[in-house]
């Protein structure tokens, strides 16, 4: 028995805990960690780096007859004294001793004793637990109050062995708060909490679970860790870190969790949705997954090098996200601890060789990409598709109805008078355009011009001119007495070889400005029938704001652009009307005028209320508001959004890159394949395997890793730690799962329930194990500091997104709408200064968009939001399976001083004040119930009342501070006479929002 204690002591954590476990040494639990840690680096799976030909990770090799300089086999089963390994470990001569001193690892006496005992017992190897097929173990027979489901049976059984009692169930208030935060990332509404507290224990608990699982916020909560794993961000990450269009993918993930899409389907759609038969739009959106790696547009970057980086990133992501494996290690050499070879790494990369992508997203001389000719730092990152966004559609419909309501207010009388007048005008000019006569033209560079008739201007150069030229074109005003829009037509001309451009140029650019009596008349909308699309930060620029530019292919076609004036102008007979164009390449043009506003080129001259407001000089009311709405509606593009997708192309060649060197083409050419030691993909015909094959393989019942990896991560969401302790490494170095059978049972249950995520979550949260108190006792914590045995719950600080959500929710500011584009929470000025290509500025979202949930925060990879960074959100450069949880002064500063939290505190105070019958007691009670789900204690009341009284006095005396306090963020609160009280209560609210208990789920 003495030996047994020694042995387990070396395992460090579970010393006396494990003492109760009788029986043999287990290779997986006891021996593998020692060998993996100290021996495999030189005597393991990496065949290119194996010292003295000795291999200790497989029985056959380790027990093989001596070779080389060895006296006996490294391991002789049953005979530790005859085993070279033991002799070397115990050698007194440092020259013989293993591991060698320069390796800096030492095998201590206890570990050596375990190895001895293990060899004595026959040196039985076991395959690594996570690589074994998932079999459903039989749950231990157990009955009693603790046993609600199989989870409890496994936990109970083990705890009984250890002689530990499970913890008491958590109090019902805490339990309700825990459930709500774990399942939705939001606190429970007080009335819902009261309902739960008043209800019958078991059935109201189940009802609450059902409720929360059915909440649309469940999907948002579940999506956060998934977005970490798939490295979802709004920008490309390298160099200029420009935006990429991808938010519909985030909506896809949220919707998938809400709709309880079977996880296997979820994986297949993301990895290979484009290869499914007749893929739906949704399935294409899902393939954004393959495009979320960081990419570059840096001048001087070599496409080949970056393609190699992208390939490796994808393999790492597949490894971490699905296989729980550190495949990354095999980029340069065979894995040191797990049986992944360097070939496995590149065979995995080969699955993605068909993903259409550019190494460098521009056409540089050093990186020719003719397909991207003319692309700038403002362009998006193709391939993309345009898809419906329910969020944008909803917003568009809302604005449309606002515009409709606004126009209903327009006075009918003057409108019909205007209509009568316009109908008369249209009788003479049915298109609504009057072609304007030209009286005079001046060229800034003196290129010759001539008029054909009175209206058509032809421009010719004697020599080819560089850059832009300005032409001031003086017009005759027409019949109409007002002007609301003008049009420029560019006409193909025989003198220019039938093109609209001159001097052999194929493209033109043009900017136009209207002047009346020398003064510029501003334009509000502009639109062209043919134009090269211009971009700003990946989005289409509207209203020709970056000028009108043509496409080569259109050079022989007539072009037209219409310009609507911000305010219509009256025209007098002696007004001097002039159009100034700055252009290059324009060869022949004609200008028309109209008294009727036109905001797109294909509009007929409607005499509707909107055009009345825009066209009638005397009507000033509603115009700017109508234009604002019109512009916002246009900007929503009919509720559609672009999103990155995977498009299959001819597969690129994939070779083993020796030592990961992308310039080395000497490596073996590989076709797609899965790691050789894992179950293979059946492929009798020997065809090239595809991403779809990979996707099916990942979620096949035989794959031992994908489901285990996901179930383990989900478990972590509810217990703070995985059943296997290292979420991103279920391999040799990843640590032994103390409840391995439970993990396997849950994994089998998950797969056999048709990969039902909500069922998995429900099974976990309805267990007694989940419902335990997180209190713990010093003895228990001392015995089991990581809570591997699950004799209690674990307190967990909320993730960054939910710290934000919590404050916004309790204060009543939270915008609960689902999905849509990213939002921009307040951010300290100047944070983006080191960004360039293009230079970036940050504009905080206004209105209700400011209060969107944390999951919708704009994710700028190189400078992600400081609040998120301070609370340990990852930058999402790389697949991240586990966030660290730190506790830093930056977190304190954020909660104290970030305008988001100060504004929330003010609103929280106001809300509680009103809910609490405008008394301190009532307000404090409301605050505590909302933020902490409980009433305050007497001692808490005492202190906070003292704070309230002292600050009330302070703000009464210092009322100059009130405006600033109530102007945090975009709010302008004016509580009038109550101001000092509310200012004081705001300080109380700040205390409550800063409490450790507020940001922790117990």
């Amino acid at each position, binding site marked *: 028995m003495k030996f047994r204690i020694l042995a387990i*002591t070396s395992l460090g954590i579970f*010393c006396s805990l494990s003492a109760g476990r009788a029986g043999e040494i287990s290779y997986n639990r006891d021996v593998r960690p020692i060998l*993996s*840690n100290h021996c495999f680096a030189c005597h393991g799976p990496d065949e290119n780096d194996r010292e003295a030909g000795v291999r200790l990770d497989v029985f056959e090799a380790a027990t093989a007859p001596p070779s080389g300089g060895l006296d006996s086999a490294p391991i002789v089963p049953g005979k530790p004294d005859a085993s070279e390994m033991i002799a070397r470990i115990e050698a007194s001569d440092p020259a013989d001793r293993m591991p060698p001193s320069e390796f*800096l690892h030492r095998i201590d006496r206890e570990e050596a004793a375990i190895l001895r005992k293990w060899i004595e017992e026959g040196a039985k190897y076991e395959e690594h637990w996570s690589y074994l097929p998932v079999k459903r173990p039989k749950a231990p027979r157990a009955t009693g109050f603790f046993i609600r489901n199989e989870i409890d049976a496994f936990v109970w059984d083990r705890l009984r062995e250890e002689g530990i009692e499970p913890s008491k169930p958590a109090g019902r208030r805490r339990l309700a708060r825990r459930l709500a935060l774990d399942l939705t990332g939001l606190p429970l509404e007080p009335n819902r909490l009261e309902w739960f507290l008043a209800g019958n224990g078991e059935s109201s608990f189940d009802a609450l679970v059902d409720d929360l699982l059915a909440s649309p916020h469940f999907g948002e909560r579940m999506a956060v860790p998934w977005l970490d794993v798939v490295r979802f961000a709004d920008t490309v990450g*390298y*160099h*200029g870190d420009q935006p990429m269009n991808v938010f519909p993918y985030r909506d896809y993930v949220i919707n998938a969790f809400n709709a309880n899409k079977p996880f296997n389907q979820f994986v297949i759609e993301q990895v290979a949705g484009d290869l499914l038969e007749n893929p739906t739009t949704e399935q294409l959106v899902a393939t954004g997954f393959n495009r979320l790696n*960081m990419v570059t547009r*840096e001048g*001087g970057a*070599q496409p080949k090098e970056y393609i190699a980086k992208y390939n490796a990133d994808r393999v790492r992501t597949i490894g971490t996200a699905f296989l729980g494996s550190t495949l*990354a290690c095999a980029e340069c050499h065979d894995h040191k601890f797990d049986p992944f070879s360097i070939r496995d790494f590149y065979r995995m990369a080969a699955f993605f060789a068909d993903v259409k992508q550019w190494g460098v997203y521009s056409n540089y*001389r*050093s990186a020719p990409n003719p397909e991207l000719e003319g692309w700038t730092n403002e362009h998006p990152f193709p391939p993309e598709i345009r898809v419906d966004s329910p969020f944008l559609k909803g917003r568009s419909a809302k604005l449309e109805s606002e515009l409709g309501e606004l126009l209903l207010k327009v006075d009918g009388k003057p409108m019909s008078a205007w209509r009568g007048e316009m109908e008369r005008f249209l009788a003479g000019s049915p298109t609504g355009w009057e072609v304007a006569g030209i009286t005079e033209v001046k060229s800034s560079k003196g290129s010759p011009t001539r008029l054909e008739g009175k209206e058509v201007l032809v421009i010719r150069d004697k020599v080819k001119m560089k850059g832009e030229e300005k032409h001031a074109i003086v017009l005759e005003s027409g019949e109409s007495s007002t002007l609301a829009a003008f049009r420029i037509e560019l006409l193909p001309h025989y003198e220019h070889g039938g093109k609209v451009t001159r001097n052999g140029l194929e493209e033109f650019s043009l900017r136009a400005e209207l002047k009346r009596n020398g003064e510029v008349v501003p334009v509000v909308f502009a639109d062209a029938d043919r134009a090269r699309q211009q971009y700003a930060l990946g989005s289409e620029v509207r209203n020709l704001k970056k000028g009108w530019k043509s496409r080569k292919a259109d050079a022989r076609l007539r072009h037209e652009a219409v310009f609507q004036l911000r305010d219509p102008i009256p025209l007098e007979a002696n007004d001097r009307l002039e159009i100034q164009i700055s252009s290059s390449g324009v060869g022949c043009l004609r200008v028309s005028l109209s008294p009727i506003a036109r905001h797109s080129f294909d509009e007929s001259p409607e005499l509707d209320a909107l055009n009345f407001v825009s066209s009638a000089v005397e009507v000033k009311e509603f115009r700017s508001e109508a234009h604002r709405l019109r512009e916002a509606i246009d900007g929503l593009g009919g509720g559609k959004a672009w999103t990155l997708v995977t498009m299959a192309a001819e597969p690129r060649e994939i070779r083993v890159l020796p030592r990961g060197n992308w310039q080395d083409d000497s490596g073996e050419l590989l076709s797609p394949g899965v790691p050789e030691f894992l179950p293979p993909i059946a492929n009798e015909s020997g065809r090239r395997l595809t991403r779809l094959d990979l996707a099916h393989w990942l979620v096949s019942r035989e794959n031992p890793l994908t489901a285990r990896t996901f179930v383990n991560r989900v478990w972590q969401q509810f217990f703070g730690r995985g059943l296997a302790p290292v979420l991103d*490494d279920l391999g040799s*170095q*990843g*640590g032994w799962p103390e409840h391995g059978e439970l993990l396997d049972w849950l994994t089998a249950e998950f797969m056999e329930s048709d990969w039902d995520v909500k069922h998995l979550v429900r099974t976990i949260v309805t267990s007694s194990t989940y419902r335990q108190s*997180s*209190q*713990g*006792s010093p003895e228990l*914590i001392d*015995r089991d*500091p990581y809570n591997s045995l699950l004799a209690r719950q674990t*307190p967990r600080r909320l993730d960054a997104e939910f710290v934000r959500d919590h404050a916004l929710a309790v204060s009543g500011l939270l915008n609960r709408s689902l999905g849509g584009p990213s939002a921009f929470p307040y951010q300290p*000025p100047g*944070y983006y*200064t080191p960004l360039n290509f293009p230079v970036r500025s940050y504009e905080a979202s206004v209105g209700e968009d400011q209060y969107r949930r944390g999951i919708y925060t704009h994710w700028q*990879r*190189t400078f992600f939001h400081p609040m998120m*960074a301070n609370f340990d959100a990852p*930058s999402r450069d*790389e697949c*991240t399976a586990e966030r660290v*949880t*730190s*506790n*830093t*002064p*930056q*977190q*304190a*500063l954020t909660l*104290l001083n970030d*305008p988001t939290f100060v504004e929330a505190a003010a609103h929280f105070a106001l809300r509680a004040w009103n809910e609490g019958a405008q008394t301190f007691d009532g307000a404090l009670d409301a605050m505590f119930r909302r933020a902490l789900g409980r009433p305050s204690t007497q001692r808490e009341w005492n*202190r*906070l009342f003292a*704070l309230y009284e*002292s*600050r009330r006095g*302070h703000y009464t005396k210092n009322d100059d*501070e009130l405006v*600033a*306090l*109530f*102007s*945090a963020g975009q709010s302008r609160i004016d509580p009038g006479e109550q101001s000092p009280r509310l200012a004081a209560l705001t300080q109380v609210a700040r205390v409550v929002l800063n409490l450790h208990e507020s940001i922790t789920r*117990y």
Partner: protein
Amino acid sequence: MNLYLPRTPYNAVDVEERRRHLTRRAFLERSGANLGGIALAGLVAGEGSANQRTSGRLTDGLSLPQRAKRVIHLCMAGGPSHLETFDHKPKLAEIDGQPFPESFTRGQQLAQLQGAELKARGPVKAFQRHGQSGQLVSEYLPHIGAIADDLCVIRSMHTEQINHDPAHAFMNTGSTIKGRPSMGSWLLYGLGAESEELPGFVVMHSHAGRAGQPVSARQWSSGFLPSKYQGIQFQSQGDAVHYVGNPGGVCQSTQRQVIEEVKALNGMLSERQLDPEIDARIAQYEMAFRMQSSVPELTDLQDEPQHVLDLYGVETPGDGSFASNCLLARRMAERGVRFIQLYHRGWDHHNEIDRYMGVSAGAVDRASAALVQDLKQRGMLDDTLVIWGGEFGRTPMGQGSGRDHHINAFSIWMAGGGVKGGMSWGQTDELGYKFIDNDEKMHVHDLHATLLHLFGIDHEKFTHRFQGRDFRLTDVHGHVAKGIMA
């Protein structure tokens, strides 16, 4: 010697470390081991059990004499040309404008010059000998030249990454894979901070001249180390540190009282709930409150006399210029900040190198030299290591009117911190194309190994376990350049 336990309250509150500490203690007590007999480092570092998520293995890593206590890294972002700064190449001048010998370039990676015709470009400006050591420095940098006797100029630098972003990552972390800790984080992790009121790792930015290449915040990330070791970016606009200023309408007394109440109520929670994080949280609020006064005190340059401002060439204190940042760096060094990194952007001289060298050098020359002199006057240079250099060099071949990125050779200098002054280390070939492959070559990994050595850390023994592997700043490489140590 209690070198291993970082002296900041940061340390006392890290949950992983507390747990490890707890575990280790429990282990020691139960196993009857003698506490005094085990390196204290073990307490911090854990025993490396595979059951533990993060376990550093600092065991013997700090056994060396510590020469430097802090670093000021003047990072010339964009990649200054070694040929216009510290690497004098008369031979290159001789073949100016002629085809560059193919024997040098065959099979080599190029950036924007990929596929272009390669022609030699001679140095744009002359070099001068300086000081007793007679070191050659370009006329672009007269002030730095004037302190040549304090400088150790390293001309054999080379790296593996030819584009800015990965090259910065390589210079900072020794890897291009994201999520690796930067050297500042490693140092802080190993040694802790010396200040309880300021972050231990501070980053500042300035820019002058040609378009500034972006520099990502991941360059000062703590990667897989706990986030408390990450660099804190000081802003020249608004609050120096994010959220360090009180909100509008909240005066110091109100803020103090709010923090007091947060601490008091957290204390009450701690009586009811067993959770070490609560005490940690209380300590963080205290630290945050101290930072709220110590950061403004640090960045308030009003008490700096005019002659000091003149020495650095500060025109408007706190204007975000490199000169102002250098002065702030000295103040941080005085207050115990462990790792100070000043990025100065604008060195990416693809074109008009003669003009832009003037701008870039003009912006940093005086202040860089002033920083070294000022530290020296205050007796701080001995244990403050100043490093000056970029993420790579520039081609001896011309690119239009400039030079392209170059990884085979570049120059940096160090001063103080246990490094010999007035010396040169390493050489390049006659055209400045490639480092000479001898004992004095300096790969980025070698620079890291040397840096850690100066701090008394054995780079091979200073590791952190992540995803089942013991990681080092120097990966599996790195040679210490002992020849440059004083």
